[in-house]
């Protein structure tokens, strides 16, 4: 949540400065320190990854390694990196945020997404529904959330990465349903947001609003976050509804070139990201309900993912750049929804 991530970040900045002075070679007596700047719901996932990767690295190179984590809203984290938060790797909710780091601060090349397999996205996720126990409003798919009287909880897509996926999931559904008719899709998305009573600024915030404050009938949520909420708030309170179609959310990872060059941590940082694609990394992802890229990783982890017809951002919006321009930029479609009439 906001509070925790802020204090963590402050600590982090202090630590980063101190460490930057103490072991500018990146390989002092305490071993290598890698900093992974990530978004909100990955906290538990990367804790697991970091512990396992440290073992692998030790076995391979004989050197100790610690990974420090920083979490917050995806856009907020990207801005922190642009403003000077030292990150060896960034693992964010959407490509647009890493694009911003490349564009505004030139810390990595604009072609970063071509350097690793699968669009630099080692695991995927999707958007599902979280409803009250027993599904009292009978919500089964996207069509049900635009019905009058249904309160939909989601965050503000202008500030939250997860909320952008929510928005695009609804958009993609309507587009598919209406054979690509943009006008109809526009209408559908407007109706969804007319049903939204509260816009939190981040995905974790809206989970809290829905689960703890008891507001709303349905929460649009990351698949992994939905399972987290189920565990946290109890399966006697909430249940997950998986729609037939949804968006293929591709969280992305990248090495921040300018930083690893300066700190001499390139090898470790690259190995760290490679580890996410390796068997062990993929299994850990599946365990935390991120959909692994590798066939069989989910089965090995003992997790089954419900079958959903998934559409990608390229398919429904022509990639993040044009999605941003058409939907989330100032004065674009999302702003239009809230424009006062007359």
């Amino acid at each position, binding site marked *: 949540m906001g509070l925790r991530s802020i204090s963590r970040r402050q600590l982090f900045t202090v630590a980063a400065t101190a460490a930057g002075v103490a072991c500018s070679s990146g390989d002092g007596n305490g071993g290598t320190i890698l900093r992974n700047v990530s978004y909100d719901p990955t906290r538990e996932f990367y804790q697991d990854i970091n512990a396992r990767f440290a073992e692998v690295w030790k076995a391979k190179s004989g050197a100790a390694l610690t990974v420090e984590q920083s979490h917050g809203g995806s856009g907020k984290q990207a801005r922190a990196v642009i403003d000077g938060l030292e990150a060896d790797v960034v693992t964010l909710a959407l490509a647009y945020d890493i694009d911003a780091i490349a564009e505004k601060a030139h810390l990595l090349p604009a072609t970063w997404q071509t350097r690793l397999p699968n669009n630099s996205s080692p695991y995927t996720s999707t958007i599902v529904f979280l409803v009250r126990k027993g599904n009292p409003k009978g919500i089964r798919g996207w069509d049900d959330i635009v019905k009058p009287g249904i309160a939909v909880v989601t965050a503000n897509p*202008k500030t939250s990465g997860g909320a952008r996926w929510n928005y695009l999931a609804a958009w993609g559904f309507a587009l598919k349903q209406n054979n690509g008719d943009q006008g109809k899709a526009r209408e559908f998305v407007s109706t969804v947001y007319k049903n939204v009573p509260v816009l939190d600024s981040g995905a974790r915030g809206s989970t809290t609003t829905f689960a703890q404050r008891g507001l709303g009938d349905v929460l649009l949520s990351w698949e992994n976050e939905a399972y987290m909420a189920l565990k946290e708030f109890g399966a006697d309170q909430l249940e997950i509804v998986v729609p037939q179609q949804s968006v293929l959310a591709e969280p992305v990872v990248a090495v921040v070139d300018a930083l690893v060059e300066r700190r001499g941590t390139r090898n470790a940082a690259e190995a760290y990201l490679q580890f996410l694609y390796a068997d062990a990394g993929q299994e850990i992802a599946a365990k935390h309900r991120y959909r692994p890229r590798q066939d069989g990783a989910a089965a090995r982890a003992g997790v089954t993912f419900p079958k959903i017809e998934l559409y990608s951002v390229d398919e429904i919006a022509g990639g993040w750049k044009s999605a941003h321009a058409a939907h989330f930029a100032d004065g674009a479609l999302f702003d239009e929804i*809230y424009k006062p009439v007359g």
Partner: protein
Amino acid sequence: MSFRRYSILPGFGITLGYTVFYLSLVVIIPLGALILKSTSLSWDQFLAAATAPRVVASYRLTLLSSLAAALVNAFFGFIVAWSLVRYDFPGRRIVDALVDLPFALPTAVSGIVLSTIYAKNGWIGQFLEPLGIRAAYSPLGITIALIFIGLPFVVRIMQPAIEELDPEMEEAAGSLGANGWQTFSRVIFPSLLPALTTGFALAFARALGEYGSVIFIAGNMPMKTEITSLLIVTKLEQYDYAGATAIAVVMLAASFLLLLGINLFQRHSGARFGRTA
């Protein structure tokens, strides 16, 4: 002008130098940088950023809810301060300490606590909901949060002023035939007015810039419950630094003018009663 008058005091040069240096470092340089950044926009862009309908709606909401909160605080803060100074009751020291809590609590914590209490399943919210009053996620919720964070300003400013009140003045008023209300409205209130205005101004200014405690209870709906500082943060998260500073500059100018106005009013009323707080 007034330079010469005070120059007999020792250490004038060094304290004035320090004042200028300190104010520059702490206030003027950051604000100057803010204004400078906003000049990277052309005048048209600046206007467009600062006067978009959503932004204007947020100015209105921020100003009105801050004003309402400051007025409520001025009224009840006065009563609290009065009780704490004039009456001795069991637990007075504890109540006195409680007043400072909103200062000490991280604003995000107050925001989360308030929204938990005032949400429709919260302690207070569950009683308001059947009455048709929606406290959390409405302008009312925003005002409640602002009242919470502003209270200590009024109380802490009023306390010393009330302590300083000379009881002889009240006795004199009484012996000249004034009743209780007349004593209060003609003697006590005017001499406390400068302090009350200061407390009001501080609570008001604090509310204008508040972020942490409000966003959790506001609901953040465009045109309805978005405060200005939220819009600034929203702009920042879209990497629109210049747009964010445009709104900030407007807010800054408005706050400055309001505070200046209040200061002038206070001077005026202070001069009328022959004292300044």
